[in-house]
Structure formats: C-alpha cells, structure tokens
C-alpha cells in the first residue's frame, strides 16, 4: 500500500497494517522491560549479597520500617494494576471515555502511592535514618544498618522514579484517549503504558517482602 494514497490514521509508513504495527510495538516494549529486569536485577543482586553478610543488622533495620505503610502501598499498587488492565480492555473495545476514566483512577492511585512513600521518607528523616545526611542510629552495627538504608532508599527511590514517569505517561494517555485518538485497531500506546505500569507493580511485589517483611519475626 503506497503511503498517502490509502492512509490509515495512526499507521506509520514502515508498517504494512495496524496489526503488524501493534505486534511490533508490543514486542519492543517487552524487550525494553527485559532490560529493566536487568537494571533492577543488579540492585537486587547487591541486596542479596549484603543481606547474606549482614543478616543480623539488616534484620534489625528492616523492623524499623513502617510495615503497614508498605502493605497499604502494595494494596494501592495492585488495585491500580487492576484499573489499568480494565482501561486497556476498554481501549481494545474502542470505549475511549471509559478508558480515560480508568486511566485517571490509575493515575490517582499512583499519586496516593507516592504520597504514602513521601510520608515514609519524611518519617525516616525525622527518626534520623537518612544515610550520609542525617543518620543517628544508636544500635549495634551502625555501618551495616546504614547500608540497609542505602539499599532501602536506592530501591524504593528508583522505583519511585519509575512511578513518577508512569503517572505522567498515564495522564498523557488519559488525555489522548479522552480526545478520541485511539480506536480498536489503534490503541497500542495504551497497551504499552499498561505493560510498563504492570512491570513497575511487579518490582514493588518483590520490594515489599524483601524490605518490609524480612525483619519479622524477631
């Protein structure tokens, strides 16, 4: 099909049809997520090694995190994944308004997550658990404990950056969807956003037990 003569809205010139374009987008997103597994994987690897060596101090440090806040945040993120999955479904069916509404709910839940995270960070600052800036931990092995908090802030911080990017992209997708830019044949951007959002959710599914639950029981 010559470009321009039989133009389909949303179809880029390098693709034969929207279905081929969608499948290519989808595979590209999965490849990106595989690289993200390795990006987070390196940090998780560091966590595993230090956890093996400094088990006792890390066990103790983990108990000082606010576990209920982490649990509530897990509920918030899992719920946002449900609303995201339903939003993608509406976009598949061409129901742009319903899709935009659910994307806004997803975005709202993402913001709730960030607020709870900010509350936790503030609490850690008040208590004096910020490595290098305000660290006043008086228990045994302060160095090893400080390293736990380095990993805590690194892991949740990198995750939070992904959340911020996700919230912005979801907001943009809600706008585009509301403007009716997508159709059942052309909704790949919503699908990509969904894949990214679910991936960030999966990272949290691992972070929650590793950071918050490993300190229990005493």
């Amino acid at each position, binding site marked *: 099909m010559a470009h321009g003569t039989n133009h389909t809205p949303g179809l880029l010139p390098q693709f034969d049809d929207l*279905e081929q374009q*969608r*499948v290519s987008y*989808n*595979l590209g997103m*999965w*490849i990106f*997520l*595989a*690289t993200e*597994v*390795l990006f987070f*994987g*390196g940090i*998780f*690897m560091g966590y*595993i*090694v230090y956890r*093996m060596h400094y088990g006792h101090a890390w066990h103790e440090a983990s108990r000082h995190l606010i*576990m209920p806040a982490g*649990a509530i945040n*897990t*509920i918030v993120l*899992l*719920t946002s*994944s*449900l609303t*995201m*999955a*339903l939003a993608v*479904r509406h976009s*598949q*069916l061409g129901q742009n308004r319903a899709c935009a509404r659910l994307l806004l709910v997803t975005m709202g839940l993402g913001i709730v997550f960030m607020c709870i995270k900010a509350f936790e960070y503030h609490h850690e600052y008040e208590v004096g658990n910020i490595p290098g800036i305000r660290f006043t931990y008086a228990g045994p092995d302060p160095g090893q404990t400080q390293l736990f908090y380095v990993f805590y802030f690194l892991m949740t911080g990198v995750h939070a950056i992904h959340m911020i990017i996700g919230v912005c992209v979801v907001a943009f997708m809600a706008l585009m969807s509301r403007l009716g830019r997508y159709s059942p044949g052309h909704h790949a951007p919503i699908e990509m956003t*969904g*894949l990214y959002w*679910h*991936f960030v*959710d*999966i990272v949290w*599914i*691992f972070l*929650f*037990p*590793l950071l918050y*639950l*490993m300190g*229990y*029981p*005493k």
Partner: protein
Amino acid sequence: MSEHIVEPRIYVRVFAALMALLALTIGVSALDLGLFNWVAALTIAVVKASLVTLYFMHARYGSHQVWLVAGMGIVWFLIMVVLTLSDYVARGVIARP
C-alpha cells in the same frame, strides 16, 4: 494473530488472588520459620508476579516472541544471581593452599 480481550471477571479474580496472596505473605512473615520465611516470601512474590505477567500483561495470550523475550529477562537475571552466589557461597569452602 489478533489480540485477546479478557473478560473483566477474570481480572477481578486475579486481583482477588493477589490480595489473598498479600495477606498470606504478611501472615507467614509473622511466624518464625527460620530459612523457610525466605522461601515462603519469595515463592509468594514469584506467584504474584506471574499472575500479573500472565493475565494483566496478557503474556498468557502473547506470541512466542513475547514468551521468548520475557523468558530471556528471567534467565539473564538468574545467570547473574547463580554465578554471583556460586562465588560468595563457595568462599571458604575450599581451603587455600
């Protein structure tokens, strides 16, 4: 290959399962099971992540290429973990000459 549209009730069931697993992982963490605490927490996390990947991310209905790429991500990660731990775990096992 046309895309698969999942019924909402399947999403809701997966969500209910995820919530139940979250309650389970918190419950198990309160028991003192020694090393099994690790095993339980990670097993539950893997099951939750699998549910999200298979249903929410549509991997279950995905093409062979999607399975290949997703599998690659996991395998590469496991190569890193297994090779690194084979070093750390084995240190001290073999006496220095």
